[in-house]
């Protein structure tokens, strides 16, 4: 039943692209998340407003709609309002969109982890005469990672599954290639099932890495027993 007649390499190519999409969009999501959290905790009401609208809107609209909006909508919008013709490539569009969507989720993660850093640390940094950048890089960021890791791990798990959606914009990642294989072999169940098992393996490996990372991040914390 598991014989997919030489389409294994196609799925393998897909896996590599899926992981590439996942890693690149996660990078964007983390950067956006840090900025978003900074905006949400900012004293300026404009920054708070922008960050608030960003997380509220993105978390209330399905990923698929946003992907379609970016891939098909943005070029037509630019053509309409500015008469610019752009040709989005599916990889860039997919990575940017998924990164943008999950940036909203990691914003909440970073906001929570910032609030989890005890006030005394910030006061001490100020008392030691650090400016805001120094305080962020030397005091806040190293401690925030520890609190943010479980949340970021969850974001990653959801994100890697969401990469399957970019198959609708014809990017030949795992899902799309499974689709191609299913059509050519006339064994749709086998192909999709193999694809689902590959996603499962990615999830399991991510969980193991996350556990190791959490142990590493908490190495300096004393615990009873």
């Amino acid at each position, binding site marked *: 039943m598991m014989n997919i007649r030489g389409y294994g390499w196609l799925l393998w190519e897909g896996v590599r692209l899926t992981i590439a999409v996942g890693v690149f969009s996660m990078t964007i999501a983390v950067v956006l998340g840090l900025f978003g959290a900074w905006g949400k905790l900012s004293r300026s009401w404009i920054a708070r407003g922008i960050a608030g609208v960003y997380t509220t*809107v993105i*978390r*209330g*609209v*399905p*990923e*698929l*709609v*946003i992907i*379609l*909006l970016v891939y*098909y*909508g*943005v070029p*037509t*919008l630019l053509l*309409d*309002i500015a008469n610019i013709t752009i040709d989005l490539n599916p990889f860039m569009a997919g990575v940017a969109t998924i990164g943008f969507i999950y940036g909203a989720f990691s914003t909440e993660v970073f906001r929570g982890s910032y609030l989890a850093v005890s006030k005394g640390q910030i006061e001490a940094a100020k008392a030691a005469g650090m400016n805001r950048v120094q305080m962020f890089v030397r005091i806040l960021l190293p401690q925030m990672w520890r609190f943010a890791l479980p949340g970021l791990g969850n974001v990653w798990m959801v994100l890697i*599954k*969401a*990469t*399957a*959606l970019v*198959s*609708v914009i014809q990017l030949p990642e795992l*899902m799309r290639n*499974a*689709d191609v294989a*299913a059509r050519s072999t*006339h*064994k*749709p*169940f*086998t192909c*999709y*099932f193999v*694809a*689902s098992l590959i*996603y*499962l393996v990615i*999830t*399991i490996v991510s969980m193991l890495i996350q556990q190791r990372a959490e142990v590493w991040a908490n190495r300096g914390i004393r615990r009873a027993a």
Partner: protein
Amino acid sequence: MDIAIIQENIPRLLQGAAVTVELTAISVGIGLCLAIPFALMRVHRNPLLRMPVYVFNFYFRGTPLLVQIFLIYYGSGQFQHFLTQIGVWTFFRGAWFCAILSLTLNTAAYTSEILRGGIEAIPFGEIEAARACGISGFLLQRRIILPKAFRLAWPAYTNEVVFLLQATSLVSIITIMDITGVARMVASRSFAFYELYISAAVLYLILVYAVLFVFRKVEYRMSGHLRSPSLVS
């Protein structure tokens, strides 16, 4: 921006919204009915009851919903002969049934894990107290464990319902005319891509925040015993 094309298609989009709400309501309803026994099995001491649910939940939570939908809708074709023999092929032929089935199984997996969290968070003293009062077995589940687990799990369950509402957009790929399906169809005919996808996004936003509003109201009502009584009534 072509406002006219949006206005023209508002009735269609609203029909799509009705389909989205229907899909969500049916899957959440059936999914919850499945999730309660699943959650109870998941925390059971007997591994023969616990393990199948563990594997089911792990599979459905670890793979993308899109794969699950395709597995059921297109994958069932591989077993057409067998499914015809046992007389269920007519169900699997239709996109609607496959959509509901995949969404239901998916949400059942997530919901039962959420409920498991709720059940495990119940302070043991409450169960001990119930036992001391002579409540055990089914009565204990029904009167003590499940109500408390629901209350504890409610905020997480709210999120799950919102996620499912958004996830229903995927069934547009298997030709169902929900909000996304309508937007895609009209957009590809008229080339008014961003107008329609933005309208679809606005509709989803309204639905999502309506669901959140209702669920927060319910949460407020359920947590009355936790609020300190106000002095001015």
